[in-house]
C-alpha cells in the first residue's frame, strides 16, 4: 500500500471533521472546539493532497500560493475590527468563489487538451464556473457596499430587469452551445473563447444581482452567496471526481440555504422579495412626504444631563443596541452605564433584534466582547411584551428595527418587518449622530413620538457623557 492510496482515507477523516465542526458550532459550549476540529480536518486534507500524483508537477507554485494566500488571510482576519466582520466574511467567501471558478477554467482547459468534452463533466464544470463567478463578483460588491466604497443604497435604473435578465439569458444560451458541442463531439467556435465569454457574463451577473439590493439586506445576500460558493465547490468536486469537495461544498450549500431562509424570515420577507423587490429603493414621493413634519409633530432634543436624570429615576431600562453602537465602538461604555445603573438597583436588559448589526448574531458578538452577560440579552419575541413595563428604552444607534411604520404604514418599504416595540415604553431616549435615515433609507416615525427624546452625538461620546453625569449625581 502506497501513501497515495491513503489519500481517500484522509479525505474521509476531513469530511467527518467538517460535519462534527458544523455540529460543534451549533452550541456555545462546543463552538470553539468545533471550529478547531474542522480546521484540523482541513489541514489533514491539504497535507494528504500533497501526495497526490496530479500535484507533483506543481509543488513550488502551490507552496508559493499557500504562502501568499495564507499570510493575506491570516493578517486580514487578525486585524479586522469586530464591526467590519460582515464584509470580511464576504471577502473570504468571494475568494472561495473565485478559486472555484479558476479551478473550473483550468479543468475545462485540461478536458479540451485531453481531446473531448464529455456531457456530465462539462455540465458540472460550467456550473462551478458560473456559480463561482457570480459568488466572486457578488461578494466583491457586497464588500464594497458594507465598506462604503460603493453606495450602500440600492442602485437602480430603468430597464434594469431587462439587462439582468439579458445577462442571465446570454449565459444560459452560451452554456447550451457548449453542452450541445460536448454531446455532438465538436464545438462550433473555439471552446476556450466561449468559456472566457461565459466567465465574463457570470461576473457581470453577480454585479447586476447585488447592486440593486440595499445595504439593509446585505446579511441575507452574504449568506446566500456563502451557499452559492458551497454549491460551486461541490460542482468542482463533481468535475474532479473528488468526494471531499462534494461533501464539504454541499454541507455549506445546505447550511447557507437554511441560514438565508432564517434571515429572510426574521425580516418577514421572501428571498425572492429580497433579490428582486423594491426594498431600499428611494421611497415614492407620497410616502416620503407623509413621514416627516407635516402634522406639526417635532423632534425633541435632550441633554446628557437630562438623560442621566431620566435613567437614574427609572426602575426598568431596556437598551436597544444597533449598528451605530458598533461603529462607534461604544459597547464598553454601554457596559459601564449598565453597571452604574445596576448598582442603583435598576434592572437593565438588552433587546436584540434578529438582524441588529449587520448579520444575525453580530450584536451578540459585539456585546460579548464588552463582557455583557449572556443572560441579559433577550431576543425580540422575549422582550417585546416587556416594553410597556419599561420606564426607559435607550436606543443606541439602532434605527430601522425600531420604526413603527413597519407595523402601521402599509406604504412603507419595511412594512411587515418584525420590529422591537420600543414605542410602547414609557420614555424613549434615542442616541443618534444626526437625523440621517438608517440603512433602509427611510425616515423613522419613532423620533417624532412625543415620548421620544433625542440625544444627538456619537454613541461612544454620548454614553460616556451620560455616565459622567450619573457619577456626578451619585
Amino acid at each position: 500500500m502506497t501513501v497515495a492510496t491513503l489519500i481517500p482515507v484522509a479525505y474521509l477523516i476531513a469530511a467527518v471533521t467538517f460535519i462534527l465542526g458544523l455540529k460543534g458550532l451549533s452550541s456555545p459550549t462546543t463552538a470553539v472546539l468545533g471550529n478547531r476540529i474542522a480546521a484540523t480536518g482541513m489541514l489533514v486534507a491539504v497535507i494528504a493532497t500533497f501526495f497526490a500524483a496530479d500535484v507533483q508537477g506543481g509543488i513550488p507554485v502551490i507552496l508559493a500560493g499557500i504562502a501568499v494566500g495564507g499570510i493575506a488571510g491570516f493578517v486580514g482576519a487578525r486585524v479586522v475590527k469586530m464591526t467590519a466582520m460582515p464584509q470580511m466574511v464576504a471577502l473570504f467567501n468571494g475568494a472561495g468563489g473565485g478559486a472555484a471558478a479558476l479551478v473550473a477554467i483550468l479543468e475545462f482547459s485540461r478536458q479540451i487538451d485531453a481531446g473531448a468534452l464529455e456531457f456530465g463533466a462539462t455540465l458540472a464544470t460550467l456550473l462551478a464556473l458560473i456559480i463561482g463567478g457570480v459568488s466572486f463578483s457578488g461578494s466583491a460588491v457586497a464588500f464594497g457596499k458594507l465598506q462604503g466604497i460603493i453606495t450602500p443604497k440600492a442602485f437602480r435604473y430603468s430597464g434594469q430587469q431587462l439587462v439582468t435578465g439579458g445577462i442571465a439569458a446570454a449565459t444560459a444560451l452560451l452554456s447550451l452551445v457548449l453542452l450541445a458541442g460536448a454531446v455532438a463531439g465538436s464545438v462550433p467556435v473555439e471552446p476556450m473563447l466561449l468559456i472566457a465569454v461565459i466567465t465574463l457574463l457570470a461576473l457581470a451577473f453577480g454585479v447586476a444581482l447585488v447592486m440593486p439590493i440595499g445595504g439593509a439586506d446585505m446579511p441575507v445576500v452574504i449568506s446566500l452567496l456563502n451557499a452559492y460558493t458551497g454549491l460551486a465547490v461541490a460542482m468542482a468536486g463533481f468535475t474532479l471526481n473528488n468526494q471531499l469537495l462534494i461533501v464539504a461544498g454541499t454541507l455549506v450549500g445546505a447550511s447557507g440555504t437554511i441560514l438565508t431562509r432564517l434571515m429572510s424570515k426574521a425580516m418577514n420577507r421572501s428571498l425572492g422579495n429580497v433579490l428582486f423587490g423594491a426594498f431600499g429603493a428611494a421611497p415614492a414621493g407620497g410616502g416620503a412626504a407623509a413621514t416627516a413634519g407635516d402634522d406639526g409633530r417635532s423632534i425633541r432634543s435632550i441633554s446628557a444631563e437630562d438623560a442621566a436624570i431620566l435613567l437614574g429615576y427609572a426602575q426598568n431600562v431596556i437598551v436597544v443596541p444597533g449598528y451605530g453602537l458598533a461603529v462607534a465602538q461604544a459597547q464598553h461604555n454601554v457596559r459601564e452605564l449598565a453597571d452604574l445603573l445596576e448598582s442603583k438597583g435598576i434592572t437593565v436588559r438588552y433587546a436584540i433584534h434578529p438582524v441588529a448589526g449587520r448579520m444575525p448574531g453580530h450584536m451578540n458578538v459585539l456585546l460579548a466582547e464588552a463582557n455583557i452577560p449572556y443572560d441579559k440579552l433577550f431576543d425580540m419575541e422575549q422582550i417585546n411584551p416587556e416594553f410597556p413595563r419599561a420606564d426607559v428604552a435607550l436606543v443606541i444607534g439602532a434605527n430601522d428595527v425600531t420604526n413603527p411604520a413597519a407595523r402601521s404604514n402599509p406604504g412603507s418599504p419595511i412594512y411587515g418587518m418584525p420590529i422591537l416595540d420600543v414605542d410602547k415604553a414609557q420614555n424613549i431616549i434615542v442616541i443618534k449622530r444626526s437625523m440621517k435615515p438608517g440603512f433602509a433609507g427611510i425616515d423613522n416615525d419613532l423620533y417624532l413620538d412625543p415620548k421620544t427624546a433625542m440625544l444627538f452625538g456619537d454613541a461612544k461620546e454620548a454614553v460616556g457623557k451620560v455616565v459622567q453625569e450619573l457619577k456626578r449625581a451619585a
Partner: protein
Amino acid sequence: MSNESIVAVYVFVLAVFVGFEVISKVPSTLHTPLMSGANAIHGIVIVGAMLVASAIPGPIGTVLGFLAVVLGTANVVGGFVVTDRMLAMFKQRPTRKPQ
C-alpha cells in the same frame, strides 16, 4: 452515466440531508460564527486548486493555478481565524442560553 458519477450523485444527495440535519438547531446567537465557520469549510476548494494547479503547462496555466491556490488558502485561513476570534469572545461567558 458512469458508475463513478452515480456514486458522486449519491454522495451529493446524502450530504444535502446531513447539511440540513446538522445545522438546523443553531441558536441565533451563533448564526454569525456559523456562517463564518461554514465559509471556512468551503475553503476546501484549496484541494481542488492544488489538484489543477499544474494541469495546464505554460505561464497562463501556472498563473491561474497560482491564483486559485492563493484564493483558496485565503478562504481557509481567513475563515477559520476570523471564526476563532469571534468565538473567543463567547468563551468566558456562562453558557446558559437566553431562554
